[in-house]
């Protein structure tokens, strides 16, 4: 293993000065200090796994967003903005905001009042043990694998951007996350995620500011992109009339129904990685406000992710290429656009902060994966299936050890990916299999009292199998995409959208049919779990401006205005 700052990589994108290295080192010291400071406040299960359920709306909301704001997300979507133009913004607006508001106003009260520790925990209460087992095992398995894949990808990025040794990047970042999560549990993960959120903004915001200054503002930027590439790169909706009129090869049906109604709903409302942060809120009003605060900031994320990609289209002298065409010296890929823009505008100090932002993004995503895995393993797999008579102290110890073991499995996955690169594609595809059907099961469980345990279990299973079958079909015969996405002009991203749509519909249809054929649960058993049988708690007698529904309306109006402005 070589020291990262001593490693010399002739093709690396940026060179750190002494002050940059101090900034990166200070970041590691601070997150470890927070972990050690909080270690005495994670002695009970409620403290370790749920952060004592005492987070304010702001802390829970920023942590909720930060757990999703990984470095690969930042670099990947900046690259997508370079590749597809402003269309990539859909993943931040229609692909997030409606789902976050739905979570806040419709689903959060049920998660919160059921006092569940996890999303699989809710499925146990609503549908019984089989549905929980399917959901918990698939989630735990996929979470650590995804964490490992992201770890490898991040180490690879650090090697390309900074010339750091890949082993060093993996062990130092993973070791740091393991220490602060094992010591302070979810509270430590949340504290660091909020810190990382600020660092990401502080490190990345200067790129759009200086980029817009150099290009002469948004109007001039649009003109320059249209001149160098195409006018389609700067319109959010007007090119979505057909698959062939936009760089992404998708149409509005896929974006609105596949992405907006299914994938984003599935991710933001049922992926325990993000929902866990909201469950740690101190009261029902904070639990409802947290996703709304997250949505407000999510709408602004394109400023530091999409805009740098668009600026790259206008100001970078070279043309970036896809991963397949990379390899020659001096040839950069779409995913390099954010580091290239950092290197373009950020001098000593600022560069260190920008690199810290990328590392912080990676670590917040990994801490999110690890803390969610720990909770689901301990409460939804170990306790019900292995050892159900342990003390609270026993489960806290199990949580600490699971944190370390989860990180070690992730590291193992990272090395496996290093040997067999194709594993990365399979793992990323596997993760998408569960999201859409899980949303179908959870939302039917919450909104339809007639849904039964067998209905929920078979719906979840059939929806997941439908998703896997379509993926395998297109993998074996790429021309099958025309049938999955209903168009011969459809491209890869359209497959994800339509695959989610069909698997959701399969899940819903199977759940309904099986539920109608099986014995319903008594109403009394569903109190607190289903709409219509539950008195949804009120936020109290507070002024209008303190009500979640008011702020959800404000966010909704801004969301509509942004979509119309960038139409």
């Amino acid at each position: 293993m070589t020291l990262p700052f001593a490693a010399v990589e002739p093709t690396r994108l940026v060179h750190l000065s002494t002050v940059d290295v101090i900034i990166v080192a200070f970041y590691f010291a601070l997150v470890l200090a927070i972990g050690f400071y909080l270690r005495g406040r994670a002695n009970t299960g409620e403290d370790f796994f749920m952060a004592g359920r005492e987070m304010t709306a702001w802390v829970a909301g920023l942590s909720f967003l930060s757990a999703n704001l990984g470095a690969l997300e930042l670099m990947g979507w900046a690259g997508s903005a370079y590749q597809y133009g402003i269309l990539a913004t859909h993943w931040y607006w229609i692909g997030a905001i409606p789902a976050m508001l739905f979570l806040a106003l419709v689903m959060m009260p049920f998660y919160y009042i059921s006092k569940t520790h996890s999303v699989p925990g809710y499925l146990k209460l609503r549908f019984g043990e089989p549905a929980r087992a399917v959901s918990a095992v698939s989630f735990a398995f996929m979470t650590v694998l995804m964490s490992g894949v992201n770890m490898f990808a991040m180490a690879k990025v650090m090697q390309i951007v900074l010339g750091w040794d890949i082993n060093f990047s993996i062990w130092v970042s993973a070791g740091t996350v393991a220490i602060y999560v094992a010591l302070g549990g979810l509270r430590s993960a949340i504290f660091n995620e909020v810190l990382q959120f600020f660092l990401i903004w502080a490190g990345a915001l200067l790129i759009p500011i200086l980029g817009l200054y150099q290009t002469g503002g948004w109007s001039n930027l649009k003109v320059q992109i249209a001149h160098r590439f195409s006018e389609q790169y700067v319109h959010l909706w007007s090119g979505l009339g057909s698959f062939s009129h936009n760089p992404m090869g998708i149409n509005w049906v896929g974006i609105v129904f596949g992405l907006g109604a299914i994938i984003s709903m599935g991710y933001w409302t049922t992926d325990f990685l993000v929902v866990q942060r909201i469950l740690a809120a101190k009261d029902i009003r904070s639990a409802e406000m947290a996703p709304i605060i997250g949505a407000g900031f999510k709408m602004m994320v394109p400023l530091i992710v999409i805009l740098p990609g668009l600026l790259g289209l206008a100001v970078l002298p070279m043309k970036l290429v896809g991963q397949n065409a990379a390899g020659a010296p001096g040839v950069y890929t779409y995913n390099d656009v954010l580091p290239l823009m950092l290197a373009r505008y950020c001098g000593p100090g600022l560069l260190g902060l920008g690199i810290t932002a990328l590392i912080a993004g990676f670590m917040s995503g990994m801490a999110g994966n690890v803390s969610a895995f720990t909770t689901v393993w301990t409460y939804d797999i170990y306790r019900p299936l292995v050892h159900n008579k342990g003390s609270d102290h026993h489960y806290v110890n199990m949580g600490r050890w699971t944190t370390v073991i989860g990180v070690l499995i992730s590291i193992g996955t990272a090395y496996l990916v290093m040997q067999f690169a194709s594993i990365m594609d399979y793992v990323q595809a596997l993760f998408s299999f569960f999201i859409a059907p899980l949303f179908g099961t959870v939302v039917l469980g919450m909104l339809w009292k007639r849904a039964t345990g067998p209905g929920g279990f078979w719906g979840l299973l059939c929806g997941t199998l439908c998703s896997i079958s379509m993926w395998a079909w297109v993998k074996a015969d790429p021309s099958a995409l025309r049938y999955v996405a209903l168009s011969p002009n459809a491209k890869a991203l359209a497959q994800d959208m339509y695959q989610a749509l069909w698997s959701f519909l399969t899940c819903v249809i199977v759940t309904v049919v099986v539920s109608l054929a099986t014995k319903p649960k008594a109403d009394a058993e569903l109190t607190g779990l289903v709409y219509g049988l539950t008195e949804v708690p009120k936020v109290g007698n507070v002024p209008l401006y303190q009500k979640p529904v008011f702020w959800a309306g404000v966010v909704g109006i801004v969301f509509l205005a942004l979509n119309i402005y960038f139409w």
Partner: protein
Amino acid sequence: MISIWFFIGISLLVNGLLILGAGIYEYIHPPAHPTVELFQLHANAWWGGVLTVIGAMYCYFFSPKRTRA
């Protein structure tokens, strides 16, 4: 318990001071061939200053002494 906002203040303050220092040094001793675009704006000096001010405000308003009182 120390507020999370205090930790954020510490982080912004220290990073701000380091970046501000680097910016002032570059202002006094400008490189012969600047490697970044818009070097003449001295972004690290004013951005470091902004972070320092915000960090100092967070440290003050969320200091353990004030939040305990």
